[in-house]
């Protein structure tokens, strides 16, 4: 299979006007589906991109090709994937150039999401301009609510700040109504965009739910000692402690709360709280802790996925990686429903169909995942999804959180 023949074939399938089409070859269909992505592989964001995203792209590539490829029913055959990837070095301008290169020079059939909120936001207008439907997997910001109207080709996989924080505020409000709590909350966050946006979203949700935020302070990202902040929060005697934290401070807060014996009845940490290494560090003390993200390990296909993951990567997966894999499954299902690489049609299917993935059954409403896992909780040493409460596989919240010792 030479490159020219492939290009003609796929171009015919796309129906794009840029290349001449040859009907005999179009009938045969493409021999490959070229999938491209530019993502951070060097620099501080490289490791996170590798463990949450790239590892899933590679695993998906292998599993799909082992199964014969993606089914294109128009041609009555399965077509394997070929991946094309570049390193954006964590620079948004580099990412934009590389995405354009993937589209214009490599002429890939599909594009996959880069890593981290600001990079996803940089890529979204480009893929939209060239009408490549892409599910942005690792982006959470209140800007998404406007973007979904303006960028019809960009889809958003994980939970956005409002949906991430409302269930917790409402749950505390509910406990207050039932008289189980007075509804006093302490909230802390690191001074980075994620922390600030999550903090604002929670403050708004708390107001609506009628609960009292009795303490609210920020701390610098990368702080070496958070005991003073914890002490200040403790002094207000809150029943609920909420930290819109990032991985290193998620770990530090959890440890220092144990040292000073701070035992709120509800404890929430944001990113990092669902990591297997979090459980690895704290063991059974994680029980009852709520965290950003979640998963349902009973979902069909999870056992096969985790087995393949263990064999391929020699390590466990985590909730964030599962959400990325789910986006790949949805992309594949949309392509298979259309039956050819017709990107506007694939976009329409993504925007309307229901997908069955490792993240459960969901649609993309306004291009946002309709029921992404918002909050998970450690129960009996396992991470389970608890919010949204009406999502299939959601478990009831364990309340109150067991004391540290």
């Amino acid at each position: 299979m030479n490159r020219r023949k492939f290009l003609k074939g796929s171009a015919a399938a796309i129906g794009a006007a840029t290349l001449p089409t040859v009907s005999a070859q179009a009938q045969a269909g493409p021999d490959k589906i070229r999938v491209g992505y530019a993502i951070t592989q060097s620099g501080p964001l490289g490791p996170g991109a590798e463990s949450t995203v790239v590892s899933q792209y590679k695993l998906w590539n292998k599993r799909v090709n082992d199964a014969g490829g993606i089914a294109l029913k128009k041609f009555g055959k399965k077509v394997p994937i070929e991946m094309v990837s570049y390193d954006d070095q964590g620079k948004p301008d580099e990412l934009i150039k590389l995405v354009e290169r993937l589209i214009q020079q490599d002429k890939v059939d599909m594009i996959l999401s880069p890593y981290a909120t600001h990079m996803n936001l940089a890529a979204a207008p480009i893929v939209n301009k060239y009408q490549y439907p892409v599910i942005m997997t690792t982006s959470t910001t209140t800007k998404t609510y406007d973007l979904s109207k303006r960028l019809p080709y960009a889809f958003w996989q994980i939970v956005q700040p409002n949906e991430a924080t409302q269930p917790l505020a409402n749950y505390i409000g509910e406990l207050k109504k039932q008289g189980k709590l007075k509804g006093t909350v302490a909230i802390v966050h690191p001074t980075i965009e994620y922390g600030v946006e999550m903090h604002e979203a929670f403050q708004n949700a708390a107001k609506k739910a009628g609960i009292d935020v009795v303490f609210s302070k920020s701390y610098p990202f990368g702080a070496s000692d958070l005991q003073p902040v914890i002490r200040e929060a403790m002094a207000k005697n809150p029943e609920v402690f909420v930290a819109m934290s990032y991985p290193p401070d998620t770990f530090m807060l959890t440890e220092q709360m144990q040292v000073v014996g701070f035992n709120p009845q509800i404890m929430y940490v944001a990113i990092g709280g669902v990591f297997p290494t979090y459980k690895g560090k704290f063991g059974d003390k994680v029980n009852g802790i709520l965290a950003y993200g979640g998963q349902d390990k009973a979902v069909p296909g999870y056992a096969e996925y985790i087995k393949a993951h263990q064999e391929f990567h020699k390590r466990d997966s985590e909730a964030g990686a599962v959400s990325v894999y789910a986006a790949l499954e949805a992309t594949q299902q949309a392509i298979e429903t259309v039956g050819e690489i017709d990107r506007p049609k694939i976009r329409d299917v993504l925007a309307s169909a229901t997908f069955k993935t490792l993240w459960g059954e969901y649609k993309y409403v306004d291009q946002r995942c309709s029921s992404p896992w918002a909050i998970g909780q450690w129960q009996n040493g396992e991470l389970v999804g608890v919010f949204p409460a009406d999502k299939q596989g959601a478990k009831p919240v364990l309340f109150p959180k067991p004391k540290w010792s």
Partner: protein
Amino acid sequence: MVLFEVFINGIILGGMYGLIALGLNLQYGVARILNLSYGEFFVGGAFTAFFTIMLWQYNPLLSLFISMPIAFAMNWLIYQYLMTPLIRRAPDQDALDADVVLVTFGLFFVFQGLALVYWSGDLRGYTFLSTPVNFLGATLAMNRLLALLGACLIAAVLFVILRRTRFGAALRAITIDPVAAGLVGIDVRRYSALAFAAGGALAAASGMLVSTFISFSATTGVAYTLKALIVVIMAGVGRVTGTLAAGVLLGVVEALGGYLIDPALTIAINFGLFMLILLLRPTGLFTRA
């Protein structure tokens, strides 16, 4: 009462800063090599401790018997085979500094790349001595206290070696004037190599001690190189007890400022103090003028 606790915790935090910086001060102060890959040995010590407790289920302190000799040997080799050619060909100290920064910056990428390949980019942490200790009513974490004690112990040993032994006298002579030291018969290259290697071993030791209470990954090394550098410059190159004191000063100011003003400002306060010292005493707090 809380203020007292914040103060004591500031001392402990500062002890950690001093601990991280001690090894770099040996490398920079005595051997005159600004090693930008310093933090990678810190990370190496942290990972060795992590594997010792999580994989082999031994006390992480035992990992010092592995990580310190390895770091010592590697730094000795770096000095002998990478730095010595640079020192030989450099016309003056400024040219040498530029070469050294480039080479050790390269080493930083090599070590971090290897760490990422073999240890992955995952955030690691383990629980060791995270028990509260009551000190005059203030609650302290045992593992952080241990790091402070480790810092004091290392500083004391270094102080005795530098002040009370012939070897130490030679090292001090090199710190003050390497050319003159050579003229009076001190084998500058051999002694500098040993000081450089010992600095690397101390980096590994500090990585081990800090890993008991701060989570880390293959990429955290550079942050500690920078922190150590700030403390070394604050203290003045070649000052051992001064390094510890500068670290403690930084920790106390950071803790009190964070508590009394706003925790969000701690890093700003840190750098504010750093700038103030650079302006008022550019050669460091503890150097003789």
